């Protein structure tokens, strides 16, 4: 209580000297703290929020989240709060829709917070972390079989405009489960500058599956103030941390679209006239992004988890774009969608070759998925890369130049794409079905081609009728 009273005693200033882009410069201030929250009253009486980006003696630079339209240097009033920015949290947030600053916008009852937590969180002590190992079944073969997701992982989808990343993400939220357990994920959908239409699509999807009651939607849509996008993901993750580590829930956070977040950061940086790094993004983009992505994981002794699935559309499908590049360096792998697979009608168009799940190795195998998982996926990867090399070759020299062995690989890659990768938007495959299908794909190869699989594993698969190689007539001769 004393804190709150102290805060109300802080003075209000009417000393704005400059309004520039998203920034305000405030003069003649005393007792201003770096990063503190300020409340701005516009000449028309509306209330906005901002934080102190730079504190000097007698002067402060403030970023305004709801935009500076309508602010002036004459009658705009600014109040220092003496606190850093906080988010109200409670488990009653489940089922609610909030704006990017955490205020309800669904005409529901006001929120009675259990606690108010610092929006920026604090770095998790690496010594307190527990390594993620629990397999999440998404029902999609390309993910479960080849790029397995585990609880507490941060695995982004790198996509391009016009590709069905939203449908893939929605399918994952529908189907994600730990096989054999009844626990459900609480989903936090964090929309950062996406269209109302896309947000509606996600909402409808959650509603149809009855998951809306266990979801929190934090929405900053395309027509909402762009600078609010700086705090939108942090609001969502603060709520996620509360649900996971205080309320013991398994939380899946979808952050879409991180490009819009980075662009908001760039806008602030440009307004401050900072030295730009690559493509105009600030030099601290990596550090800043990591303060979002690292807020995922598990903690020793606490049963809740945070799994993150950020979505990022790469301008011009360029994976070397700074936002995609730095994201890839922080997250634990990436799923990359491919325009050419999409154009062939393959859904989900996730290209296995550049995709990767770094935490897969600990989450698969005996006791997690199935003993043969690692070898099957390694062999499928090998065969797919041979197959696509040959496809490139055939484009130049024609099929006539291929050997019999090459022809098998070429036919493999076709069925691999149309049968293994391709599946229905409402088709849910168990991990057993995915791996069995993998064996079916490999059954066209003789044993000596299966160099990535132990002979004992092959023997077992033969006995279980999973691996059924039948030599062709030409080979028998």
């Amino acid at each position, binding site marked *: 209580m004393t804190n709150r009273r102290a805060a109300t005693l802080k003075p209000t200033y009417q000393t704005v000297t400059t309004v520039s882009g998203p920034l305000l410069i405030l003069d003649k201030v005393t007792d201003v703290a770096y990063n503190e929250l300020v409340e701005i009253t516009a000449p028309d009486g509306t209330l906005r929020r901002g934080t102190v980006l730079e504190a000097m003696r007698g002067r402060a630079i403030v970023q305004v989240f709801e935009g500076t339209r309508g602010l002036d240097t004459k009658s705009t009033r600014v109040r220092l709060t003496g606190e850093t920015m906080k988010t109200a949290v409670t488990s009653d947030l489940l089922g609610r829709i909030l704006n990017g600053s955490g205020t309800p916008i669904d005409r529901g009852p006001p929120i009675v917070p259990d606690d108010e937590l610092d929006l920026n969180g604090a770095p998790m002590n*690496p010594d307190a972390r527990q390594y993620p190992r629990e397999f999440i079944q998404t029902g999609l073969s390309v993910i479960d079989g080849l790029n397995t997701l585990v609880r507490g992982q941060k695995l982004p989808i790198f996509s391009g405009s016009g590709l069905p990343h939203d449908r893939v993400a929605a399918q994952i939220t529908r189907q994600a489960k730990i096989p054999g357990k009844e626990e459900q994920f609480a989903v936090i959908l964090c929309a950062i500058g996406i269209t109302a239409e896309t947000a509606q699509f996600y909402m409808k999807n959650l509603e149809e599956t009855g998951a809306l009651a266990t979801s929190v939607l934090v929405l900053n849509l395309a027509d909402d103030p762009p600078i609010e996008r700086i705090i939108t993901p942090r609001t969502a993750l603060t709520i996620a941390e509360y649900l996971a580590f205080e309320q013991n829930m398994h939380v899946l956070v979808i952050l879409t679209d991180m490009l819009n977040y980075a662009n908001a950061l760039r806008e602030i940086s440009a307004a401050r006239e900072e030295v730009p790094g690559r493509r105009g993004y600030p030099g601290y983009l990596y550090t800043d992004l990591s303060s979002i992505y690292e807020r995922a994981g598990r903690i020793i002794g606490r049963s809740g988890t945070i799994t993150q699935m950020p979505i990022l559309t790469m301008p011009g499908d360029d994976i070397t774009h700074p936002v995609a590049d730095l994201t890839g360096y922080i997250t634990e792998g990436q799923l990359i969608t491919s325009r050419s697979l999409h154009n062939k009608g393959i859904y989900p168009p996730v290209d296995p070759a550049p995709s990767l799940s770094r935490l897969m190795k600990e989450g698969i195998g005996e006791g997690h998925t199935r003993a043969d998982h690692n070898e099957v996926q390694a062999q499928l990867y090998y065969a797919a890369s041979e197959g696509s090399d040959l496809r490139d070759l055939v484009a130049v020299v024609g099929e006539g130049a291929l050997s019999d062995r090459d022809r098998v690989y070429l036919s493999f890659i076709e069925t691999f794409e149309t049968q293994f990768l391709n599946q229905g938007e409402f088709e849910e495959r168990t991990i057993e079905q995915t791996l069995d299908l993998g064996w079916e794909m490999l059954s066209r190869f003789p044993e000596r081609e299966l160099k990535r699989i132990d002979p004992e594993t092959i023997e077992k698969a033969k006995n279980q009728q999973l691996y059924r190689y039948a030599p062709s007539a030409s080979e028998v001769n």
Partner: protein
Amino acid sequence: MTTRIGTIQRIAGPLIEADGLFGVTMFEVCRVGAEELIGEVNRIVGDRAYIQVYEETSGLKPGEKAVATGTSLDVELGPGLVGSIFDGIQRPLPSIKEAVGDFITRGITADPLPVDKKWHFQPTMEKGTSVSQGDVLGTVQETSVFLHKILVPPGIEGKITQIVPPGDYTIREVIAQVQTATGKEDLKLTQRWPVRIGRPYKTKISTEVPLYTGQRVIDTFFPVAKGGTGAIPGGFGTGKTVTLHQLAKWADAEIIVYVGCGERGNEMTEVLEDFPKLKDPKSGKSLMERTLLVANTSNMPVAAREASIYTGITLAEYFRDQGYNVALMADSTSRWAEALREISGRLEEMPGEEGYPAYLGSRLADFYERAGRVQTLGTDYRVGSVTVTGAVSPAGGDFSEPVTQSTLRITKVFWALDKDMASRRFFPAINYLQSYSLYKDELVPWYQKKMGSDWPELTEESLSILQRDKELREIVQLVGPDALPERERAILEAARMVKEDYLMQSALHPIDTYCPELKSYWMLKIIMAFWQRMRQAIDEGIPLRRIIALPVVGKIARMKVQPHEDVKVMEQYFKDLENEINNEFISIEVN
């Protein structure tokens, strides 16, 4: 050393400016604000000091005080280091967890080393002996494999007036007293050293022994010497961290210092969970008994990230001075360079290439120059080494960027990670045609002694096959494999064998993860023997199709998972395989 108190004027991210600090020196440690956050002076203009702060600065206010302490950022060196995990400024993460819980807040002070723990000290010097800097006063058996030597700190010389008998002592107790020219000095089990200054040694000596890593592509083609430097640049997902973890696990150094600099929290957790369970192939003891971690993950304060590699290398030098071979891994130096860039940007310095400060190259050189094989201080002859391997994370995977280029100008080994190989799951994805090692020649005698006198020929031959393979593949891309004569298609087959059956190595397979010297030798010898026989057979007109259908081809593919604990059994296995190759070739040549 007087303390001076200044007043904060400006706060912008990790950098603050404070007035009234006339006489403060560059890199002096300051305590900032009510919570006394730790910072270091980075620029001085008149009485104004620019201070980089090692903790989150939210809530600091202009007008609060900044106190110059008169000391430099230093580390405490002594028993208790091994097996620890520290943040960038040597605060143990477990102590931080105990103090504030699972999330790191600020303003925490923690003793770097356990102060209450008693160590069994065994003196090796007697009262009345004259000692000088670097002499061994006694030893502490710190872990079952590591003997910690207690050294006379640099700058101290004189006669021992007192030394304690063998017994259990804490790091705060005085264990000896030395009469120096200027007075009596109390010596304890620990000493302090500023992180930005390299610890002194007698002379640098030439490198002649490799850091054996058990990773075939490194040991065979691109070895790093003990005391050498290596860089491993690669885009994301190419396996930098896995390779560095493999080195930390299997390299034959006595002490490993792993610096996680601006990387993922879970990677540190992985080391903390895995290493205690893994056994050192040489000593058979847990790997954690020789490992230290410095972890400043990407979301921890950026200025402390800048300091973390200096903390790491100072720890490494301290063990070197005891006469040990130390290997330091820094993952990733690019994140360190970015921290440098961020602070430089806040200082409003004129940027060099891609916004990095103009002194990026010289700072990197300073760091890598602290590696080396040296004769240490001390009157007995001791040789120690620090090997430094740094990961580089080039933006967009483009090796022409400033951090990669500045690093390659200094380091002598370049392990180029290849995105294309990684996407084929060909690991380690070290490009065998682009990478290089400048130590290769000087290490030849060691390899000939350990592996076999024909080792240089075997490696040269296999590398030339890989080179030919690349050229032929370019032709195949244009005309198809059918257009190649059998002889050349045989080269493609031999290259496939070298790549898949030798270079490719699984970090996850319990046996394949580490390959001892003799096994590497035999594996390469077998493949080259097969290649020789294949070439002869082709000349005699035997079709390649029949050769690659030989049963022994499948056996060669599984050599890597052959157990190697019993050297005799292993050698017998390879000799049998050699015979099988001969017999099978004879059988097709007869038919």
